[in-house]
């Protein structure tokens, strides 16, 4: 498996990462190197083996249905470049 230039641009756009024309070529090379590395795993026969989801056999931790957080709107928006009345402000996005 390998990616072409078009795919590189598409992935970058989906992730909202700005990629210049100069960067596309090198990125394509890097991604393909990673994919080739991962592809080596394909040599292992895993037929009949259930995919492993965790290295430790344990059940998922659960929480009680109790409100324990909130009430810190000012902290939540503290890092935002722009805010008003504890709303995040972003460039207008309208359908």
């Amino acid at each position, binding site marked *: 498996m390998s990616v072409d230039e078009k795919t590189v641009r*598409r992935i970058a756009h989906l992730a909202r990462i700005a990629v210049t024309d100069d960067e596309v070529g090198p990125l394509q090379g890097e991604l393909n190197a990673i994919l080739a590395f991962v592809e080596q795993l394909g040599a292992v026969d895993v037929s009949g083996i259930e995919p492993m989801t965790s290295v430790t056999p344990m059940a998922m931790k659960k929480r009680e249905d*109790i409100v324990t957080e909130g009430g810190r709107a000012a902290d939540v928006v503290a890092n935002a470049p722009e805010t008003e009345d504890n709303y995040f402000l972003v460039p207008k996005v309208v359908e």
Partner: protein
Amino acid sequence: MNAPVDPKKLIKGGLHDWEVIVGMEIHAQVSSQAKLFSGASTEFGAEPNDHVSLVDAAMPGMLPVINAECIAQAVRTGLGLKAQINLRSVFDRKNYFYPDLPQGYQISQYKDPIVGEGEVLVDMADGSSITVGIERLHLEQDAGKSLHDQDPTRSFVDLNRSGVALMEIVSRPDLRSSEEAKAYVTKLRTILRYLGTCDGDMEKGSLRADVNVSVRRPGEPLGTRCEIKNVNSIRFIGQAIETEARRQIAILEDGGTIDQETRLFDPTKGETRSMRSKEEAHDYRYFPDPDLLPLEFDQAFVDSLAEGLPELPDAKKARFVADYGLSPYDAGVLVAERASADYYEAVAKGRDGKAAANWVINELFGRLNKEGLSIEASPVSAAQLGAIIDLIGEGVISGKIAKDLFEIVWTEGGDPRTLVESRGMKQVTDTGAIEKAVDAIIAANPDKVAQAKEKPTLLGWFVGQTMKATGGKANPAAVNTLLKAKLGIE
């Protein structure tokens, strides 16, 4: 899927008849105190970003921990939909970019949902019923809310809803008309409200529908579908389907083809329009969420939840028909809301079930609708209505007086029995008193008496006069008998 086509459901185009095929994805907000993966409140209407934890805001290093009650609610809902419960399910990341989704992905379930196939029985207004297949139900996070009308160049983002648990309930494309689609959502909403797993409040966005619509000529393979996103009222669901079906038919009859796409219904313009921006986002790049282990529980957990389920609308309806002798239609009306059914049962207990149903449906519901009140806010309690029905049964008041009494109890309150005494509303069953009134009317109207021999329908006029003379309190049966005897009508 290829059941016989009912010609009545077809839509007439310019050239052909068309069958509309509808499937739905309903997003139902899980009733819980806290969010699906954080301890922030789910309460509606808070100040902006007040119900937000650092998990919901996607601060670095925060980890999701699942809310046990949300799991239980999804399982209860699955049981209510007679569905397969999966003892092992997996959470995946659905990746897309939007300002009200701070993580850049929604935690959802893709290949292995918590609930599999089930079904919903839907009663139609004409007395028929259809079975709608449920494909799956999965748990996922809601996104935040964007306000676009606050500023000319900025959108305002509030994450209070971000991370609230939703159940996405996916139906099979088993619906064949807008009526069926509306009835399906109505029934699903009823089931959710009975279960207490979603409040079904569409105005607050607790229940929203994505509607998949395609058309075909009867007998042909399925056509290309369009998905109408985020329709938020049952009435709009119906309108959106009609509008979209006609749009597709017009294109096809002009020799065109339908593009599979996401569309938005605009209720004010009465049209659907393409949401091109969503097209690219369809590449969601799902993968299992590495922050979450698979969700596993045992059958004993499912069984204990099943034991705690309330009686569901279908079972309640069947019981009302069997135990109270109600028509399926009346039983259906009464069970549509759990509170209505409870009210009815309180009235019907120890009384005639049909009489109780008539009073609850015709008088009470009629009056509540007129005033825009819910059954919970009814000024007339079940005990008061029961007392009114008892007074009719005992012959103390006539049905007509009972309606006046109902009106008094509605506006002024009070014990019906005491009111009947204090306002002198008791029915006159004393034949002597009624006879006196009848005699007076007969004596005063010799011409009408003569006519009545030829025209027995004049009896009605005499009944009316007698009731008027007795202030409406005469027992109607006694009046009828007396008048017939005296006028020689049989």
